[in-house]
């Protein structure tokens, strides 16, 4: 969109400069490969050195190839040049921010940010002032015009005051002072040079000279728009995911270089023994090698039994608890949600209010919620036991019976601790699921019900014959997402239980065990292996549900 068109001769000249720049780039990158090895830049470990060298070598070769393509006036050359310059630009920009301690400086911002919040509030209020005009555009123009102007000034004023309050000037000075070192200055120069090269290459004359077509612009724009997201995604998601897989085969402890241990982690997790017992209470050490195996549980029948022992009993206890948790928490959340959504679907007034109320628990912080329930569960003064007591007294006087108040100990009893967590989780996810079901219900065509009414079907017949089959896709979605959530239960347990694994390990869950292994014992390789096993379990459960859903929909369809 440049206003001044360039002559052909000038374009050729610029193109020649770009070709030279590509060669210079290649030389710089090659020189860059040497810096880690002669000690200019220090890296923590060898694989980082090798990685940096490899990336720079690839960049150098690509740059040379780009130069060759540019001399042929091939558009591929332009693409290569743009890609290389863009990546180098981003890298330099990140180095600038890092050298200026912007990322670390966020901590300092935490100190001053509180003072600025009121002024930020003023700026937001200014925005809403301006938005009034958008909502009432038909009012006469002159006052609203001034309203918009006022809003703009309020926003600006509020923002400037905010910046002043959070000490932005000092922050900027600090940034510049930190930047004033060779590394920082080189990076700034890099930002300028690569940025200028990008800008120049994007000029329409140059594009034309390199035979760009309209879809080339779309390709460039597409990758450009996607790039922030994609780069972050690769660095903070895809990369770590692959690393996690790698770590699960190592003895990594986060601070020392990891050693490859092959399948040892998985072998330890899956190392289990079953042994027949000659009497139900036979000691474990008589049937398995207790130097290796710990008893996880035993199934008693008749005058014998089956002992289940594992090398890592905590993993199997955690798996048992997590599966039990999911087995109860998912139906306890989904079935009431299904029924409630059917009730909510009646066209009576006030349904939106109830919908909002049911939704409330799912937006509150699990940590806060668990703290509240911790006191509700208190065995002596808590409301839950109080309600139970009152209910039993009422029942006893009403029917003249003598049911004994159980005085449940909730979190401190190993038989009820996990159930206490289940109730919280079901309570918290029920409203969310209700809304999902409600949306599914509203998509069922009304004619189906009308036809059924004509055929004389009652409400239950309609529910089983129409509602449930038509809701099958929603039910699948709800059940699988709730299951995935349930399999990762951690925060409720961590806050509610003290210690988090509960009395006699009754509430140790897979994620809790992962946390303990990885971040309290720093066996991070082992923790990664647990994560992958968890993933496989979740994946398997989802797959089973998917199969069942598909089969049932084929059956009904």
């Amino acid at each position, binding site marked *: 969109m440049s206003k001044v068109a360039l002559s052909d001769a000038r374009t050729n000249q610029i193109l020649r400069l770009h070709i030279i720049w590509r060669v210079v780039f290649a030389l710089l990158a090659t020189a860059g490969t040497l810096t880690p090895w002669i000690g200019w830049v220090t890296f923590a470990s060898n694989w980082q050195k090798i990685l940096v060298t490899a990336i720079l070598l690839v960049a150098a070769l690509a740059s040379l190839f780009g130069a060759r393509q540019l001399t042929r006036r091939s558009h591929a050359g332009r693409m290569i040049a743009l890609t290389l310059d863009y990546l180098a630009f981003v890298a330099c920009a990140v180095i600038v921010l890092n050298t200026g301690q912007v990322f670390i400086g966020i*901590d300092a911002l935490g100190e001053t940010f509180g003072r600025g919040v009121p002024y930020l509030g003023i700026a937001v209020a200014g925005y809403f002032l301006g938005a009034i005009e958008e909502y009432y555009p038909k009012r006469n123009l002159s006052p609203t015009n001034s309203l918009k102007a006022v809003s703009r000034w309020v926003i600006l004023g509020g923002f400037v005051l905010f910046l002043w309050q959070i000490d932005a000037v000092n922050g900027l000075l600090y940034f510049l002072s930190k930047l004033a070192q060779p590394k920082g200055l080189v990076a700034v120069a890099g930002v300028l040079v690569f940025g200028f090269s990008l800008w120049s290459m994007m000029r329409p004359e140059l594009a034309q000279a390199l035979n760009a077509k309209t879809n080339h612009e779309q390709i460039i724009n597409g990758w450009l*728009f996607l790039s922030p997201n994609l780069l972050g995604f690769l660095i903070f998601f895809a990369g770590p995911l692959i690393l996690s897989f790698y770590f699960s085969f190592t003895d990594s402890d986060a601070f020392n270089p990891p050693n490859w241990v092959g399948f040892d982690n998985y072998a330890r997790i899956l190392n289990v023994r079953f042994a027949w017992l000659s009497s139900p209470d036979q000691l474990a050490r008589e049937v398995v090698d207790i130097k290796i195996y710990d008893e996880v549980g035993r199934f008693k029948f008749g005058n014998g039994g089956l002992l289940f022992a594992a090398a890592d009993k905590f993993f199997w206890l955690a798996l048992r608890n997590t599966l039990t948790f999911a087995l109860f928490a998912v139906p306890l959340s989904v079935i009431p949600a299904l029924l409630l959504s059917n009730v909510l679907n009646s066209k009576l007034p006030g349904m939106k209010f109830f919908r909002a109320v*049911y939704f*409330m628990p799912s*937006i509150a912080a699990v*940590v*806060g919620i668990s703290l509240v329930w911790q006191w509700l569960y208190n065995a002596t003064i808590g*409301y839950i036991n109080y309600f139970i007591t009152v209910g039993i007294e009422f029942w006893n006087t009403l029917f003249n019976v003598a049911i004994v108040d159980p005085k449940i100990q909730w979190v401190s009893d190993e038989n009820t601790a996990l159930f206490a967590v289940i109730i919280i989780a079901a309570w918290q996810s029920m409203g969310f699921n209700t809304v999902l079901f409600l949306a599914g219900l509203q998509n069922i065509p009304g004619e189906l019900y009308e036809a059924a009414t004509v055929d004389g079907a009652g409400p239950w017949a309609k529910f089983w014959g129409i509602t449930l089959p038509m809701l099958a896709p929603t039910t699948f979605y709800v059940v699988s997402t709730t299951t995935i959530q349930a399999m990762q239960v951690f925060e409720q347990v961590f806050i509610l239980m003290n210690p988090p694994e509960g009395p006699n390990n009754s509430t140790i869950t897979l994620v809790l065990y992962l946390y303990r292994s990885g971040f309290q014992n720093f066996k*991070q390789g082992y923790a990664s292996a647990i994560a992958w096993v968890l993933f496989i379990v979740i994946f398997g459960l989802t797959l089973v549900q998917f199969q069942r859903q598909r089969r049932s929909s084929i059956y009904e369809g």
Partner: protein
Amino acid sequence: MNPQSYKLRRFLGNFAVYFVLTFFALVMIFPFLYMLATSFKIPSDTFRYPPRMLPRDPVEIMVTGYDEPLPLYYVDVDGQQKEYALAQSNIRVGTYAPPEDLNATVERYLSEVKPTGGAMNPQSVTVNGEEQKLFDVEVEGQVIPMILVSQTTVGEFIDPQNPETKVYRNVRLSEPVENISWHPENYREVIELNNMSRALTNTALVTILVVLGQLATSVFGGYAFARLKFPGRDTVFVFYLGTIMIPFVMLIVPLYQLMVLIGWTDRLAALIIPWIFTAYGTFLMRQHFITFPKEIEEAALLDGASRFQILKDILIPASVPALATQATFTFLYAWNSFFWPLVIINVGNEKNHVLTLALNVLRGRASDTPNLILAGAAIAIIPPLIVFILGQRFFVESVASSGVKG
């Protein structure tokens, strides 16, 4: 069917509907009400059984002749319930009876009764096979030797209007006079003493930056996926979709090591930067942009607008509801997150704590003051509730639609 019975049935049906809905609404809302009410209580009130909802304080009253205000109690006087002030507690009272007739009891202060025969030469008598000490008890001017049947501790209650009127009652069995009073200073105490103010600002800062960053990256990414054709787009998109189902716990170990590598452990940056790139948000924005009519964009392109201008001037202003929805989602996620901060921010580094971490610390530190813990919980829970109420319309609708389409 006659219309009257139809009406009745409909009425009963509606009544049942509202009954069920109200019951569940109470179940849903009760823990929140409990949290709020308890956060305004004084500690002793929180440990009372049976539990009560509203915060109450014991009432105290100034009585002439006493320097300090005296607590008021409900006292039974001559069959009437009256409000008397407790002037003196822990008065020890003995019940005495003559050895011949144990039912003819009188009550006297222990301090006023002396042993028969003086302290040096106490006398005793055998009653029912047990030896009992004898005391000189004055009854209507006569001194009668009696034995101590039982003793208790009582309080002296006086009529506030007429301090000469005194009655003695067991203090523990008397019901104190209380009035409803709220203690908002609990919140001040939590914020000032327990690091909550710093945690609150940190949480706000982290949340704002995550929301803004995530909106930016997902708007650009979503637009590229929805509207721009480029080779590799669909492959990348499928790749994105595939990762949506991957649970976060898969990443926690390698992400932690990445943070160790770049020196962001214990830093707020670790709570922000990795979270502003999201596959799910990008997917949602793509689903939104793809519903947009292409013609408007094509017209703008012909007029020479750049893609960026189209996004800025046409698509974003028209996408406020979708953006608000995603902002709300992200807000809740960032505000409520606990696992990752727990892993990455050290317990000792209170300067960088976020609310959930501060609550975790408070839980251990204030375990004997549930009012403070629940005030902290309220501070963490109320801002999301406000955001939810403001964005409710967009938010609930979008949860509904994402569930069905997604």
